[in-house]
């Protein structure tokens, strides 16, 4: 972990998003530095998941700019964005329930064509997630929540992404798996993949993140290095909806 800020990989600047008449984001600006873990905190309906959908091109902002590695992502389709090097671990994992675990993991390599390297990467995933080895031919839908989270992470890594975006990776997991997932996120990051994660569980997320943003009803009310935010009383205020936090 370095304290100096490296160059940005992903930036959202002045993004305004609407669902019909309702505004979801107000001049949202977020930067993910190359090689960093950045987490976006916030309560329900704060616009966290929509932020992820904006990055992936699933929702189009009404105004503002999204750039990845210096190039704009606005107007690209989701598959095009994935091909630029962004992989996702969606909320509630969203595995292909009737496909086998092996097929699910290999679907992550859909944008690649280098068969041999893909096979090697599959082996690498089995060392990273040893439990999946015995499960390869099982239906993905038959796994436990924690195991499914492992599959979702392996699937995301299979595209050899430069960045992974994760929507509430610890949601609904047993405490044992929560620790394991956080540890894995750190491992992935140390291998050079930048991580942008959306979380409700602030104390956990701040343990592994470099920077954090706190989103409240579509506005960033707090941001900075994770270490500084960990002890900041305003974090609690933001969660409880204290208006003086801004």
């Amino acid at each position, binding site marked *: 972990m370095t304290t100096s800020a490296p160059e940005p990989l992903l930036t959202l600047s002045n993004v305004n998003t609407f669902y019909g008449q309702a505004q979801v984001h107000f001049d949202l600006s977020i930067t993910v530095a190359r090689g960093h873990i950045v987490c976006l905190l916030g309560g329900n309906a704060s616009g966290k998941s929509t932020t992820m959908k904006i990055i*992936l091109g*699933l929702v189009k902002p009404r105004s503002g700019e999204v750039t990845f590695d210096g190039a704009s992502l606005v107007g690209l*389709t*989701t*598959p095009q964005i*994935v*091909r630029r090097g962004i*992989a*996702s671990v*969606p909320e509630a994992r*969203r*595995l*292909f*329930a*009737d*496909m086998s675990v092996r*097929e699910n993991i*290999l*679907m*992550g390599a*859909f*944008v690649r064509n280098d068969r041999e390297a893909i096979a090697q990467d599959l082996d690498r995933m089995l060392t990273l997630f040893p439990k999946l080895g015995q499960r390869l031919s099982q239906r993905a839908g038959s796994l436990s929540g924690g195991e499914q989270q492992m599959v979702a992470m392996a*699937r995301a890594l299979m*595209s050899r992404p430069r960045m992974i975006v994760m929507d509430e990776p610890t949601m609904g997991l047993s405490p044992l798996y929560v620790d394991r997932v956080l540890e894995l996120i750190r491992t992935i990051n140390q291998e050079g993949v930048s991580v942008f994660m959306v979380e409700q569980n602030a104390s956990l997320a701040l343990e592994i993140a470099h920077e954090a943003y706190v989103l409240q009803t579509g506005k960033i009310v707090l941001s900075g290095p994770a270490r500084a935010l960990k002890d900041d009383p305003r974090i609690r205020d933001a969660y409880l909806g204290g208006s003086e936090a801004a």
Partner: protein
Amino acid sequence: MSSWLDYTINGLIVGNVYALVAVGLALIFGVSRLINFAQGSIYLVGAYVGWVAVVQLHTPLPLTIIVVAASAALVGLIIERFGLRPLQNSVRIAPLLATIGISFVLDQLVMLTFSPNPRALPSQLPDVRFQVGGGTIGPLDLLIAGVGITSALLLFVFLRYSKLGWAVRAASQDRDAAMQMGVDVNRVNQAVFGIAAALGGVSGMLVGMYYNQIDTAMSLQATLKGVVAEVVGGAGNVPGAVVGSLLLGLVESYGVAVFGTSYRNLFAFLLLVVVLVLRPNGLFASARQAPPEPLTGTFIAPSRPMRIPRWALAVAAAIFAILPLFPVSFYVLQTLINAWLLGMLALSLTLVAGTIGQVSLGHAALLAIGAYTSALLSLTFSVPVGLAIIGGGLMSAALGTTLISPSFRLRGHYVSIATLAIGEIVSLVILNWEGVTRGPIGISGIPPLSLFGYDLISPNSIYWFSFAVMVVLALLQGRLLTSHLGRSFRAIRDDDIAARAYGLSLNRYKSLAFIFGGFAAGISGGIAAHLYSYINHETFNTQQSILALTVVILGGLGNVVGAILGSVALVGLPELFRIAAEYRILIYGIVLLLLVRFRPQGLLGTI
């Protein structure tokens, strides 16, 4: 005993043909959650392309199959690209309505090109039969079985081992997640439509060869059979579709063996209704599996209905009321009488499909029930015509609601399929229940309209009578919509779960809507019977159901004035421009397509 083996072979062969249609439907449903009502039209195109190849170009059989598959696939790709892709972000039922419009257009184009007369489609295969056990089997049977098995194998290999096949499977399980893996869903849709169309086209050609006859009526029947097989197997389930098809083929074949040919289709639709009611997810869906989608979403485009001041409506009504006093031709009056009769049906459908959101595709059945009841009451029991018509309305309300009630627990697309099937069942029962309905001969010599002992024979009196009845029904319905009941209907349409949570009994309100709607449609059918003086099981057909649906979408769903305006427009404009009858269906199809795409709220807006 030999005949039973023959019926079994026949059932399996026909089932194979259905499977080619149903597998395509299942693939499309899997990826797009769409029931493609244009599948039968592609089958029709395949049959006619096959005819051109065999009879005019004298191509050898393997080449014929390739030509048919390629042309049908091309049609499928065009449908996907220009008919459906623009509707991706539209309400769920929009693509379904679009495929109905597309099927009208394609069927009519084939009919205009080749004429509606049946043609022979020789199979080019030697006419020999081999003894197998106690039955016989011919080269064509083997060809059909071979094509079926080969297609299934190819499809299996494609889905299991090719990259695009994986994309198809992933997209059908979770479309958004597949996109996040980099799957281009448009390409998947293209692939699926191309494959489905190729299979459907080859199926049409094989059926044409099997019966050595093709005609344009094949289309709707093929769609219906494919849908039945697919739903029986479990919507979106490809192996299920194959099993469902073979089952359907056997059920039909044995049914024909026991009861006779005219019952063939009845079994298919009864099977569908039974499966929909008892196991809406199909026979092979595991119990824990959730339905493929909530499939809610009627065709209500958010819009602000156009407010027409009361005085303007009153003036318009007055003008139409005094119209016969002016020197207008008989022809104009006749056209408007048709519009008023269609208007009553549209009032009924706009209430059912618009206000309470149950998109019915079998509304013509309500006309038929009203017409037969009124005709038989006046003929057999000498009931005065005025009363007989009311009797028709009441019977339609009661019987229609009873018949439709098993589908009350269904939602979205399934309601449309069930109502379509129930409509076909009514028509088939009329055809087969000779003791009451006089079967295929129909009912002739129905007494003319009369009221309080006075015959209404002059065009003016018929005009006034039908106009007055329609206005009364419209006023009643307008009153209904502003009442508490109307609000409850719309609540159920907009969110049936929330409505139920607030204590609304869905079954009761759906029944009330169908009772009122059934009455209006039954009255329309009753009047029509006395006007036409002859009716049979084909007088009120699916085309009319779809025409009524186009009318109410044109007017704005749920909109009473819109339903009447839509009727006048769709009946009147083709007359005004003197469009030949055979082009009219084509125009209705195009109107439906354009509306779904560009003005889903209709002319006057949804209510």
